[in-house]
């Protein structure tokens, strides 16, 4: 293992949450998602953990845009006619809010105080952007403001915010807002010691508790625009990690799409499953997708697009380490790789002696059902070069990945007996295309996978990452994901087919699909994804929602899938490719089956890792 890589910290180490705007811009890899997010409209950014939501939102801050040096940076900046205000989730709606008043406040009082914290936090973020724009007058969206104008602006804002500050400056207002957060906490603690009636009177008399954050934002950004002689200039409030916000705040934000001041855009980041967001969007009076706002799912439906992003990220990581090498050169070809078109024209990849005929012939020998499959379709492996191109495309190219996996896992002993065996780490998933697919285009995962591999090349002064090293890193990444899944709280009453926790659930799904794939007769389109059918109880659905929000399972497009999911019933899902690799499945969506069917009964012993691990 490379010495300078702290594996345990890899996933979280690349969390943009902890980076300043300039650092985010410095490491930013362009993706089409930024283009979609940045348009002059309200937007909802939907993606699981690590899918890059925070990075994209942070990139819309003036300081990040000013610092961005990418090829597309100049033309992109020209299109942005607003000032982005990044609103992190850490203070405003984290768990500490729920403990305000030691849990002794009534719901109404608690809500008032939580909203006051939230509003104060949003205002602090707005002031942060204002001060940054003044401090960097000559950079992107910088503003030259004389001291006198700033002083007058500060007095105006203080008046609107009903706030006291030591001196009349924007920095001073920021400091006072931090003080207001403490004040609200103290107030909550006080409320826990007096009667609800008495506390109601106190709260009613504090004007700052009753201001509407959107109204106030509209007001103070207007004051700033006036001071800067930029009347009507636009602003964007960029809300991160809304899945951790109280539901009524999420509802308020989604409802605001229709009623918000036209000079303010709302760009909201949320995990795929949010009942409240979904219900608000779907309600008759709610905002309409495409009309009031745009939804941007942060997973790639197009592998080519994802590949482009992954390759850019590869270039960025390798260049930083002083390497000039393509991912294909360093990681090799994938065992599943559909042969490049150019190559097909020059040479038939299925011809005798080529890679695929080796796989097909090996499998044909030990797998009678594959042999039957070929016979029924009139495919003669010895005369394959003469096979029509259309047939190759429709049959062999589809059959190849399945054949590769079956061939890998079906074992023929010296006496000719064939059985399936579970092999833990597997070079089957090595190769640039597979590694990219396994990352799902999720930047944090891809960085986590590639960093140790690149470190391996640097430390060993080589230009190729051995398959065993790639396999080890895939295993490590999958183990980290499973460890994360293990930490997800288990809802009460999860007793469907012995499933106790999310890691157990995905393992059961993975092993069952693997068992189907290997032990059933060869099928060109095996069951690899599943529908959350009516036989699945609510507790399991809750677990699956958590899995979807953390990237353990993925929505399968072209089904009932939407960007924001409210009700999981009827939705088609697949295991993320990282878990697919762990459980020995091809990296494709395959045919769907009912989840309740998958969870029935025990799993064949041959598929269980406890009985047959074989290290490579």
């Amino acid at each position, binding site marked *: 293992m490379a010495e300078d890589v702290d594996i345990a910290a890899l996933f979280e180490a690349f969390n943009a949450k902890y980076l300043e705007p300039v650092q985010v811009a410095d490491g930013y890899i362009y993706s089409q998602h930024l283009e979609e997010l940045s348009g002059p409209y309200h937007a909802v950014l939907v993606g699981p953990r690590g899918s890059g939501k925070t990075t994209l939102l942070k990139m819309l801050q003036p300081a990040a845009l000013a610092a961005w040096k990418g090829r597309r940076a100049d033309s992109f900046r020209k299109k942005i006619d607003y000032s982005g205000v990044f609103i992190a989730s850490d203070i405003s709606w984290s768990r500490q809010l729920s403990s305000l008043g030691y849990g002794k406040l009534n719901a109404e009082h608690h809500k008032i105080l939580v909203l006051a914290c939230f509003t104060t936090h949003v205002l602090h973020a707005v002031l942060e952007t204002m001060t940054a724009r003044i401090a960097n007058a000559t950079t992107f969206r910088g503003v030259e403001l004389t001291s006198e104008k*700033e002083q007058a602006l500060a007095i105006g804002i203080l008046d609107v915010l009903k706030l006291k500050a030591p001196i009349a400056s924007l920095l001073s207002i920021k400091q006072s807002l931090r003080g207001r957060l403490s004040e609200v906490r103290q107030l909550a603690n006080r409320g826990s010691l007096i009667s609800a009636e008495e506390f109601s009177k106190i709260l009613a008399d504090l004007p700052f508790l009753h201001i509407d954050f959107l109204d106030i934002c509209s007001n103070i950004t207007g004051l700033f625009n006036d001071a800067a002689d930029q009347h009507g200039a636009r602003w964007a409030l960029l809300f991160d990690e809304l899945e951790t916000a109280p539901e009524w705040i999420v509802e308020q934000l989604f409802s605001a799409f229709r009623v918000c001041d036209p000079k303010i855009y709302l760009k909201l980041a949320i995990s795929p499953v949010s009942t409240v967001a979904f219900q608000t969007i779907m309600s008759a009076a709610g905002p309409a997708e495409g009309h009031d706002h745009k939804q941007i799912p942060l997973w790639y439906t197009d592998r080519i697009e994802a590949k482009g992003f992954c390759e850019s990220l590869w270039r960025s990581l390798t260049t930083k380490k002083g390497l000039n090498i393509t991912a294909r050169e360093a990681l090799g070809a994938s065992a599943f790789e559909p042969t490049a078109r150019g190559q097909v024209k020059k040479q038939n990849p299925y011809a005798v002696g080529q890679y695929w005929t080796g796989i097909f012939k090996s499998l044909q020998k030990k797998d009678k059902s594959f042999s039957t499959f070929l016979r029924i379709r009139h495919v003669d492996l010895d005369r394959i070069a003469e096979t029509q191109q259309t047939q190759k495309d429709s049959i062999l190219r589809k059959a190849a990945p399945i054949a590769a996996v079956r061939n890998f896992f079906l074992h023929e002993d010296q006496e000719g007996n064939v059985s399936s065996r579970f092999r833990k780490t597997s070079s089957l998933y090595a190769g640039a295309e597979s590694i990219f697919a396994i990352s799902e285009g999720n930047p944090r995962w891809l960085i986590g996978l590639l960093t140790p591999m690149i470190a391996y090349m640097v430390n060993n002064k080589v230009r190729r990452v051995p398959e065993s090293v790639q396999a080890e890193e895939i295993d490590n990444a999958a183990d980290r994901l499973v460890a994360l899944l293990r930490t997800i709280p288990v809802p009460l009453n999860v007793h469907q087919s012995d499933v106790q926790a999310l890691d157990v659930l995905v393992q059961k799904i993975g092993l069952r699909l693997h068992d189907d794939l290997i032990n059933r007769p060869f099928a060109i389109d095996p069951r690899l994804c599943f529908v959350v059918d009516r036989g699945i109880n609510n507790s399991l659905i809750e677990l699956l929602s958590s899995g979807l929000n953390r990237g353990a399972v993925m929505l399968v497009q072209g089904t009932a899938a939407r960007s924001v999911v409210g009700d999981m019933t009827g939705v088609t899902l697949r295991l993320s490719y990282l878990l697919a690799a762990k459980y020995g499945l091809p990296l494709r969506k395959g045919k769907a089956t009912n989840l309740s069917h998958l969870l029935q009964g025990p799993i064949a012993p041959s598929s269980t890792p406890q009985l047959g691990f074989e290290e490579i």
Partner: protein
Amino acid sequence: MSTTFRLAILSDLHAAPKSVPAPYGEIKLFTDQENTAATEHPLKGLERLIASESLRADAVVCPGDMTNKANPQALEYVWNGLQRLCTQLHAKNIIATVGNHDVDSRGHSPNSFPRESLMRLQPPFPAGESGLSDKYWAHGYYIKTLPDLRYLVINTCWLHESRDELERGVVTDYTLERIAAELDHLPKMKTNIAVFHHHPHPHSDLGLGFDDVIRNGQKLLDMLATNGQWLVLHGHKHHPKLEYAQGQFRQPIVFACGSFSGRIEGDNSLISKNYFHFMELELNNTKMQGLIHSWAWIPGIGWQKYSSSEPSFPSEAGFGCTVDITTLAAAVKNELGSGTPKSWDSITTINPELKFLMPKQFSALIKELSSEHKIGLVYDSLGKPVQLGLEILNG
């Protein structure tokens, strides 16, 4: 010639192997936990901090208590660790001395002699070379003169083999006489640093006790004052404090360093944390002036800048400003005029003395600015001043 001399200070590490039984919380720097993350191991965390902040120093300073209860394995571990830090910081000097825990085995076998473990260290402890180290062991001190400054290292645990002197630091009359004679003969230097483990003057805040002050401490301070401007660095109390010594003139500035990874007990635990200090000493100023940047250790996170308010030791502190507070406040008022808010940096550029205010001097200035001139300050989230202006009466 450089205008600043930088010191990386790690005091009172109290390192020990995890395998040695110790009460919970007594040891924070384990010496047999090679695979611990940088967020859980103060020394590894420091290496990460040095890299991320690109720190460079002229000297690494360790005013004693490298180990807990004189553990020989920990002693070697820390001494090697300090050498590594020197390399990482590009520091040419290591200024270390003995602490009571380095020589006091308390309950160990009567056949073990902790001093021998120290004397066997390589490179030779504490000077990194044989000549000066031998002198330290023979006479209880050594003096080294660099082009820009001079430093004196004293062993205040010299008599710790004498059980009666176990609880306090000592500079014997003999050692004092030798130091005075040597300093008298050496050419005078503008900047001088003295490093030893115990406190030379009373440090009894927060119930930290009276009895362990150095015997002959005030004599030592007086002697130093007669030989130029001195900065004293010491450890032992685990409670960082910065003040002038008593005396008739040229009172040395005494910095009681916080503990790098030792246990913080009693009332002090409400005020102090574990600290890494990084000092910048101004060589060109006519007075002994400098800045102390401190990071606090947060298990699970690592070394962090921290929000500081009295009575805790500030994350950013200065020392050496001798201008009277009333005069300074009037000067600030004059620079601000009746105009709009100004940045703190712009005011300190005009009046650099402000940078070197000690923590209590700074508090006094803030009070004076507000009460006499109606000037208010704005701070960043770490409590560092960023702006000042005329106070407003809104709301």
